[in-house]
Every structure is written in C-alpha cells, then in structure tokens.
C-alpha cells in the first residue's frame, strides 16, 4: 500500500519567538526552521510501516513557499521515497491546506494518510480532520499506536481521560501524538541519497484549488507578562507564604 505523509515547515520548537513591533506577526528572519515535530513522528511511522513490509511507498507532501523543499529533503533523508511540494506564497490556512491535500490524494490514492496532530506555529489542530471530512474518509486523531491491516487500522488514541482504541476503514487519515514513536536521526549517507530522490512541484492552481484565506489576522501581540516572583529559603517559608501572603492553602 501507499502511505502519504505531510510535513509542514515551522519555526523550530527550541526557538523563543519574538512578536514584531508592528503587530503584523512574529519575526521569522534568521530563525531556524524545521519539520513540525508531529510530522517527524508521522514520517517515522510511515517509514517503519514500510520497513515492516506493510507499505510499499511513502510519499511526503508539503504546502508552502519554495523553502519547504528543505523539509521535504529532511523527510526523504528519513526514509520517504518521493516528495510533492505544492508551492504557494499565500497565507495558507488549514481549510485551504486540507483542500490542497484532498486534491493530492485524489491523484495519489494512498491507502493511509498520516499527518501531525498539530502544527506548533498556529496550534490549530485542524488539517488532518478537515482532510478526512473533505475526502469522505474515516479518521483517527492523536494516535499513540497504529496496527495496520489490509483494509482497516486499529488505532489507540490519546484522549483527555486516558486512551481509546478505535477501528477505522481504510483509506483513513491518522494524526500523530507524541507517544506514537521516537523519530530517528537522518544518517549522512541517507542525507546524500535523499538529494537524488524526486520532488514534484505544483501549484494550488494546478490542482484546481481556491486557497483564498477566510480568516484575517488583525494583529499579533505578546501575551501578558508575569511579574517576577521571589525565591524562598526554606519549605517553612514557602508554606507560610502560601498560607498568609497568597492565601491559596489553609
């Protein structure tokens, strides 16, 4: 079977972002960009399924500016077979991305799509679910375990109360949670090999998708700061402060 995975280019999770003074967004100049961490988990899962003989091909898709090629190369170095870049400079929101991905799966007909549960820049957690809805597919979000069979998948999901296991008919969309796997690092030979793997480039217009944004960002501000607190010298002082100053315990 063919597996499609998605890889979003995002500000690296270690970067402390800075809001621009003109409130138009966050500063992306000279900031380290990476594959969204949940998408690394998606890639890893797909590659492991291939290594286990459960899938024949892993195709990775990214939607965005031409620089997304870097993240596609990373995915190829991690074991994906080929890449698709849907190139656009438009401000791409989840609904538009889901429509683009729907058009890609219409062309590619994968049996399984694995996306991240959330992109750590916009924190939307929408794209995989929207894609499933648009394509009329079943979905299993926040996966911590996937058991793949020929025509179905049994997926354990991280939910607020603990874990839930569901069975979905294939093709399906699965979104990854943190505990699904621990992604590998790309080895140097694999990074070299990835340079030769093919990346197809197309535009949303090629796919016949209208990507006009529906939501306008009016401004972006830093959050309200917290006043610095104090250091206490002992447990005794801590308990005293909590009882008599903050009055949060009795």
């Amino acid at each position, binding site marked *: 079977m063919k597996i499609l995975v998605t890889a979003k280019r995002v500000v690296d999770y270690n970067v*402390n*972002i800075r*809001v621009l003074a003109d409130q138009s967004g*966050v500063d992306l100049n000279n900031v380290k960009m990476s594959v969204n961490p*949940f998408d690394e988990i998606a890639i890893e899962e797909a590659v492991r399924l291939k290594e286990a003989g459960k899938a024949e091909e892993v195709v990775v898709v990214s939607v965005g500016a031409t620089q997304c090629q870097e993240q596609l190369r990373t995915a190829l170095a991690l074991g994906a077979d080929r890449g698709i870049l849907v190139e656009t400079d438009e401000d791409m929101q*989840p*609904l538009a991305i889901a429509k683009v991905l729907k058009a890609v799966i219409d062309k590619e007909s994968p049996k399984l799509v694995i996306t991240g549960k*959330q992109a*750590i820049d916009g*924190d*939307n*957690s*929408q794209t*995989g*679910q*929207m*894609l499933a*809805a*648009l394509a009329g*597919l*079943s*979905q*299993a*979000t*926040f996966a*911590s375990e996937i058991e793949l069979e020929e025509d179905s998948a049994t997926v354990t999901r991280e939910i607020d*109360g*603990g*874990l*839930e*296991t*569901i*069975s*979905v*008919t294939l093709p*399906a969309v699965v979104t990854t*949670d*943190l*505990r699904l796997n621990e992604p590998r690092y790309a080895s140097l030979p694999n990074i070299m090999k990835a340079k030769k793997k093919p990346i197809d480039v197309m535009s949303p217009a090629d796919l016949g998708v209208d990507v006009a944004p*529906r*939501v*306008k*960002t*009016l*401004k*972006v501000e*830093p*959050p309200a700061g917290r006043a*610095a*607190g*104090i*250091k*206490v010298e002992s*447990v005794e002082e*801590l*308990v005293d402060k*909590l009882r008599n100053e*903050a009055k*949060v*315990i009795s």
Partner: protein
Amino acid sequence: MSLLVVAEHDQNTIKVPTRVAVAAAQAIGGEIHLLVAGEGCQGAIDAAAQIEGVSKVLAVDHANYGHALAEEMSALIVSLAEGYTHILTATTTSGKNYMPRVAALLDVAQISDIMAVESADTFQRPIYAGNAIATVQSSDAVKVLTVRGTAFDPVSAEGGSASIEVREGPATAGLSSWVREDVVVLERPELTAASIIVSGGRGMQNGENFAMLESVADKLGAALGASRAAVDAGFVPNDMQVGQTGKIVAPDLYIAVGISGAIQHLAGMKDSKVIVAINKDEDAPIFQVADYGLVADLFKAVPELDGQL
C-alpha cells in the same frame, strides 16, 4: 443570532468545559442552544436544561453517538447547523476531534481555542504555544469555534430552564467503530477542574516517586499533573500531561516539582494564579514564571512540605 454549543457529557452530567463554551457564547451574544448527543444520556439532557443561559436543548439519544466518533458527530452537527451563526464546543480531545470536520463540511474555517471575544466575528487565540496572541477576524457565514477551557468563567450549572427538543441524526457513516477504552479512574479532582495542581517532571526519576506528590496532593485536595518528559518516560499516564500539546490549566495554585519549565510546558500552566517551583537548578526557566521558587532537592523538600501541611 442563534448559537449552537455542542456539549460534552458522561451520560449523566455536563462537563465543566461545556459551561465555559456557553460562557463564550454569551460573550458573543444571542440565543444559545445546547446539543446533547449520546446513548442513554437522559440524565445529561436533563442537566443541560438547567444550565444558565441556555434556551433550548437539542437532544439526540442514539447508539450512533455513544462514543462521540468524529464521523458520526460531525454529520449530526452539520445536519442541525441550519440557522446558526456560530457553532462552538470546548477545546477538549473530543471537540478537537470532530469540530474541524464540521467546519470542513460546511466549507468554513475553524477558529481554534479562542480565549477572548472581541465581537461576533473577531476573536483572540494563542499561537506559538501561547507566546503570541493573535486577534483574528472570520469572513465566513458560520463561525466554527473551539473555546479554551481556562479563558472564561463557566456559567452556572443551575438556574436555567431550557426547553428540550428531541431530534434525530442522519444514518450512520459506518466508517469507524469503537473498540475499547482505558480510562484512568481518578480518585482526585480532574486536572482541568482542580483549583490546586501538583505536577512532577523528569526530576521525579520514576513512577513510584510520584507517591510523594500524591500524598501532598491528597492533603491539598489537588489534582496531579506531569510534564511530557515524565509521561514519555512512563512514570505516569498520558492524560496527566500539562502543556502546549497536553492539557491547558489555570488553577489557583500550581506546584511544579522537578520540572525545568520548557516553553511547551509553560504554555499549559503559565496562566495559573500562583505558581510554585521546586527545582535544584537555580537557573531553571521555571523560576522565571514562579511566584515562589524554592531551590532545593525535591527528595528532601517534598517530604518536608508534606509534613508541614
């Protein structure tokens, strides 16, 4: 304007985050209807009718909705969507699961995790793990929203007198089925509802050591939380994770023990009223948000704290 809030319930009671979503709906303004879908959920339907500010309960009691599967829930909500200007639910794993499907089927955007209402079409929401707050305006005819559990005070569970309208949903989508659940039975308050939380991180070293925190939590009537590192290492179950990609909490008191304070963790707890950090590393970033910081070995400090409570 009419707003539809989708309720989360345990068959008998309506969960607190739903009452937070009703509060957000009130901030937008208009007539508020509450959808209660489930199987064997008459108790929840009756409870929903008591909720302050709700004028009508749409009640759908059917086997298709027993486990709130996304395919079923989204098809149901879309079938009831006509006439509503806003469709809201709480930002829980359940709401996050079906609501984007609702938005996509209606061909509208979803605005995730709103934390403030500026007007009927303009909302504030956190991005970049809460390190920036975006004010966004939707141009869609229907606004599909999820509501951050800590952002509004829940409306009262009592005092309302909504009418109950029994409705039916579409035929089952039949794409997925529920297999089983491993739900942690809590003897303590739920994380998102607790007024005090004691959280442990990698510094706890193993699951057994969490017994120390449990003892403190029991004395304080507190819930137990954890960092991702503690969950990943298998010390505690996943539902205890606080943070950008776990639970968002804002209790009166948050005690972080052996947690360094990575931005992803801070994203989940930095709106707590009072933060206490116990960490042996005086440079740990958690101290930058702590009202009271104690630089100490937790294996000494926590038993001492336990003794003094």
